[in-house]
């Protein structure tokens, strides 16, 4: 996290990751044949396989993989609560790096990557593309500082449901320090659309342990509210409530078949990327609905 340039930081992470797994991502192309289907009227005659017709005198339509390998949308929380960090960098920086890493990683695979940053409302939206310069735009959008006053996960999810018609991968990165009232509804809508959803909850180690020593006036970075807190007396209750919150989120995800990944900002990003991929593999093995990124898993595991 000491590299200031987000793109460079993401590249370092991804290249280190590849080195680690001894596989090169610079092979192949995802425009592969999938199946033959008998020609029916109104089919596009361009996809008739004339060689098969020549051999068997029957019309077969040749079906290929989609034009793009994968449509991945990164949903990054840019609220002020993400602007907290006790390790010299903030949760927002960690989350941006994670998003950039994923974007770079997928970009290298030729997948289309889109971005949606949000706080209490949607701030930036980049449609999923794979073209030159898109990654740079994406990095610039990720580098914008967190300025939102609150966190509303519902709004971007709702928006994604509206925008993204094709099934794809949705990676939601946030601290989720907000009420989870309508989260389940929005996540279920997303899952119902056939998207593969990955929820990453990023929390600071201080938030997870609350190991402050002296009592102080604690100020909420989002609302500005100030409370006198004595950590010795408040820690127990805080940890209990935090655990309840996380458990609630995890239970919701599990209920909807969504991957949940909790990350502390002191965890190295390479391991986080590894966790991401492992989680995806497990997810794929659980559900055959999402067999689409065959190229990715095949290459990754190859």
């Amino acid at each position, binding site marked *: 996290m000491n590299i200031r340039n987000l793109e460079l930081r993401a590249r370092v992470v991804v290249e280190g990751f590849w080195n680690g797994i001894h596989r090169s991502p610079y092979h192949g192309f995802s425009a592969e044949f999938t199946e033959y289907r008998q020609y029916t009227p109104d089919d596009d005659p361009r996809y008739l396989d004339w060689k098969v017709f020549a051999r068997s005198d029957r019309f077969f339509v040749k079906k290929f993989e989609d034009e793009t390998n994968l449509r991945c949308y990164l949903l990054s929380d840019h609220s002020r*609560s*993400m602007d*907290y960090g006790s390790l010299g960098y903030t*949760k927002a920086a960690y989350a941006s790096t994670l998003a950039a890493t994923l974007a770079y990683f997928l970009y290298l695979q030729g997948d289309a990557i889109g971005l949606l940053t949000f706080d209490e409302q949607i701030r930036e939206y980049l449609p999923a593309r794979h073209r030159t310069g898109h990654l740079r735009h994406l990095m610039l959008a990720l580098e914008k500082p967190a300025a939102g006053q609150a966190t509303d996960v519902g709004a971007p999810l709702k928006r994604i449901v509206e925008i993204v018609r094709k099934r794809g991968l949705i990676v939601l990165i946030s*601290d989720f*320090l*907000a*009420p989870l009232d309508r989260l389940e509804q929005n996540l279920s809508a997303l899952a119902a659309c056939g998207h593969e959803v990955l929820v990453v909850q990023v929390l*600071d180690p201080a*938030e997870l342990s609350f190991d*402050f020593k*002296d*009592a*102080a*006036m*604690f*100020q*909420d*970075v*989002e*609302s500005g*509210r*100030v*409370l*006198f*807190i*004595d950590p010795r*007396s*408040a820690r127990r*209750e*805080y940890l209990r*409530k*935090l655990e309840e*919150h996380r458990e609630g989120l995890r239970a919701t995800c599990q209920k909807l078949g969504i991957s949940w990944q909790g990350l502390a900002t002191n965890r190295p990003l390479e391991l986080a990327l590894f966790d991401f991929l492992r989680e995806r593999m497990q997810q794929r093995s659980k559900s055959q609905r999402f067999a689409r990124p065959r190229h990715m898993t095949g290459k990754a595991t190859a």
Partner: protein
Amino acid sequence: MSFLTPLFLLGFLAVGLPVLFHLIRRTTRERKTFSSLMFLLPSPPRLTQRSRIEHLLLLLLRCLAICCLAFGFARPFLKEAMAPPADSNGKRILLLVDASASMRRANLWPDALAKVDSILRKTTPGDQVALFTFDRQLNPLFGFDQWTGAPVGERAALLARKLAETSPGWGSTQLGNALIQAAEMLAEAGGKTPSQRGRVELITDLQEGSHLEQLQGYEWPKGIEVAIDVLKPRAASNASLQLVSDSDDSDTKSAATVRVRVTNTAGAKREQFKIGWARSDKSGFVGKPIEVYVPAGQSRILALPADPAESLDRILLQGDEEEFDNVIFAIPPATLRLNVIYVGADSETDPKRPLYFLKRAFQETRHQVVGVTAHHSGELLPAPEVQASSLFVLTAALSPESTGAMRDQATAGKTVLVAVSAIDMQQTLRGLLQTDNLKLDEVRPSNYAMLGDLDFRHPIFASFADPRFSDFTKIHFWKYYRLDPTALTGARVLAHFDSGDPALIEIPTGKGRILVLTSGWQPECSQLALSSKFVPMMYSILESSGVPAPLPVQYKVGDVVPLAAFAKSEQLAMTMQFPDGSQCPLGRDETNFTRTDIPGIYALSTPSRQFVVNLDPSESRTAPLPVDELERLGVPVLQKPTDAPLQDAERKRRFQNVELENRQKLWRWFIAGTLVVLLFETWLAGRTARRALEPVSMSAG
């Protein structure tokens, strides 16, 4: 230092607040940002566990400010600066304590002593106090000069000791007299300025029987007030006894009785009493007492039969609540026996002769028995009888020897009444009067003669001086004997006939006198014996002939007993025996006995006579008299309700404190001090806060 509103000193408790605030952990300066407070609840402030107090000077300044503020609001003032200018001269207080018989009731005298003590406690060193008791008269116990002469610290004790040595007597309550004398004493001693005259502190039971009549018409001196402490008796009801005197014409044949009046006070709860003779050893009644029912506020008179065989001298009442007036003393009055010698030639049974009427003129009463001894003109009068008689009545001519003896009696101081009823008495008159020029002429008026000119200044006719009784014209004289009074040396004509001739002539003879009535009283001569004037005239002649009057034997406590009534001054010295058994010689020159201080029987030796002294009946009227009665008589009464003196004193003290505090205004200094301390505290606190913030700002930068 004193405080006007000392409750504000409770503000000192607020000193604990700065200490408390100092000990509460101050964390507001340290701020920490956190991602979200949604899982956090505010912690309550708690005391720091550090025992060390930081910023001790600041703490002291804040405590000092609170102390100054509390002092200021308590409005302090310095008491030693207070000087009572009004009381610096002191007051003159004359304590007038009732020591009459009614104060002998159960609790009154101790209450009076307590009252005096309480008054003495309130006096200031500048005051002058005198103590007087009173019953019939004012008795000085402790004068103003004794007060001022005594050491300051011992004055009250000396005065109280004087009062403790005395006790209530048996006298009646002459409150009016006592008040007048006390007021005049204060007015004389106080000078011309009314404000310096002083106050009379009257301590009394103020009973109904207090005599206030002297106050009527008395002009009360200005500047003298009377503060009355009315003592409340525990028992309000009282019954009393009073002797009722017999009339002179009481039937001597009936059994001897003593009449007593039993009076019950209004509002009394007891109405049934026992009355009877008692012994002097207080062993109770002798015989069976009489039970009498007397309703409250009424009186009954009852006759107690006196048994001459028993020497009983007191009557006891039982059944009421107060004992002091339940005994009265009574002795039967001594019967005065007098002798009149009649010398005549008639029989006492002949209703036409003078002796018949003379005998009937002197009736026997319980107090006086007049014996008329008749002798014929030729008889020799027995010497003892002559010695015992003081009046000689002549109605017939005497022999020359008898005439000389009769004149000797007159010369010795006795009275000889000559009623001329015959012309042959001329010689006897000449012998008696020792004159040869005397000539009697019988006069028989054509119709009748009347008494015309009487000397009512003479003791014989003095009792007729009233116009109702001075009409003698209804007495007709048929016959009289004219004589020339000018022929008689020193003769005084006491009555004339309407013709101008003398009717009654008084001729002094030696120590005695000779009375010549120029007519007789028998019907042959006149209607005098048949008239209503005859009996009183004869008694007047008898009494004016040196016969002692019936002695009164009932006196009240404090009465003056005239000794002259008992014995002649030239007799031997007398001794008076008091009821308590003590004796006291009386000087020859003493004419009055005044020491009738206690009720009882007083015995006088040589001659042996007794008289009783009883309590004044007015003392038994113990119902309380309203204080308004004194005000009505012009006495400026200073009202003294029970709690008022304390309240007044408290109010006065508070007022003085307010005045003093207003003058000194020490609270201003304390408030100013508070402001100074607060300013310094503010500066110091600001300076301390700046120093504390410096490292924070540096670290923030």
